[in-house]
């Protein structure tokens, strides 16, 4: 059993959640997909969105919810992302766009620039994206002046996987063993979850 799991981190490092030929279970909202990783690569840090789409964000304003389409993955792929803002807004994440992430009973926790000081590995921001089921974000400008942009930087991994439940790579015995806990499998949550359900 490899020593890998979601949210794994070491100082200054960000480990992939699965390696070649590892079994994974993709959880998306209430669905589960059993798959096997057959390719992975690192994705260097890049600017994935300007939430204001170039328009800037006026003082004391909140943007509408914007889909982060640059974090979408191709068919049969999932991405593992950590992220942070580089402009001084607070950012609320939704994943997918209708489900609040970082949701507590009384508060949806926002992420701001302080995250790189408080959580240098960004472990608490980690999300996974299944295919084109991308997250959405809102930005809040608490300043008395406009922000020229609200940009997010993401860094992570891209994984290609094959279906173990149907198609040419189907392996019902392996899926059965995974479900019975007799074969190793890494669970990957690719969405948030509504509270209280």
């Amino acid at each position, binding site marked *: 059993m490899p020593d890998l799991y979601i949210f794994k981190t070491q100082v200054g490092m960000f480990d992939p959640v699965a390696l070649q030929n590892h079994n994974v279970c993709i959880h998306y909202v209430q669905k589960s997909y059993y798959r096997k990783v057959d390719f992975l690569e690192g994705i260097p840090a890049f600017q994935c969105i300007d939430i204001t789409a170039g328009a800037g964000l006026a003082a004391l304003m*909140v943007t509408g919810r914007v889909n982060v389409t640059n974090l979408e993955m191709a068919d049969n792929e999932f991405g593992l992302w950590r992220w942070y803002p580089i402009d*001084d807004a*607070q950012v*609320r994440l939704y994943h997918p766009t209708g489900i609040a992430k970082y949701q507590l009973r009384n508060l*949806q926790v926002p992420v701001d620039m*302080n995250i790189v*000081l408080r959580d240098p590995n960004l472990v608490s921001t980690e999300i996974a994206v299944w295919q084109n089921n991308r997250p959405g974000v809102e930005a809040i400008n*608490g300043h*008395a002046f406009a922000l020229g942009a609200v940009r997010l930087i993401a860094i992570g991994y891209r994984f290609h996987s094959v279906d173990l439940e149907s198609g040419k790579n189907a392996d019902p015995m392996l899926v059965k063993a995974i479900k019975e806990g007799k074969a190793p499998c890494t669970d990957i949550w690719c969405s948030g979850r509504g509270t209280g359900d």
Partner: protein
Amino acid sequence: MFQEEGIVVTGPVVNLPTAGAGGSRVVFTIPVLVGQLVGVKSVKIKKVILFNNAAGNTSVLIGNGAVGVGIPVLLPALTSMNGLEDIYDNLPEVESFANITAWPAALVAGGSIDIQLQVIVRG
């Protein structure tokens, strides 16, 4: 290893045309959005830039009282030389939970001071 927490933000250039605490103006507004998720924020002044527009040799005071009141003062008076720019760095890390205001101690008639702050926003 401890690292100073906070985000460095630069405020607007504000003109101070009226001498005395009664002429105090807001030079940096603490970010806050009532009803949103911000929580409490505060600022520490990191750097002050003064430009003296023919105001004569004077000093500028920085506080966090209401506009037109100014008091209490946060820092010792900063000298502003006639017609020159003065830059103050490495200031004491005085923390303020209210908007920063500033006012010139005195002005030559028709003169004014331009001021800009760089602050560390915490919270």
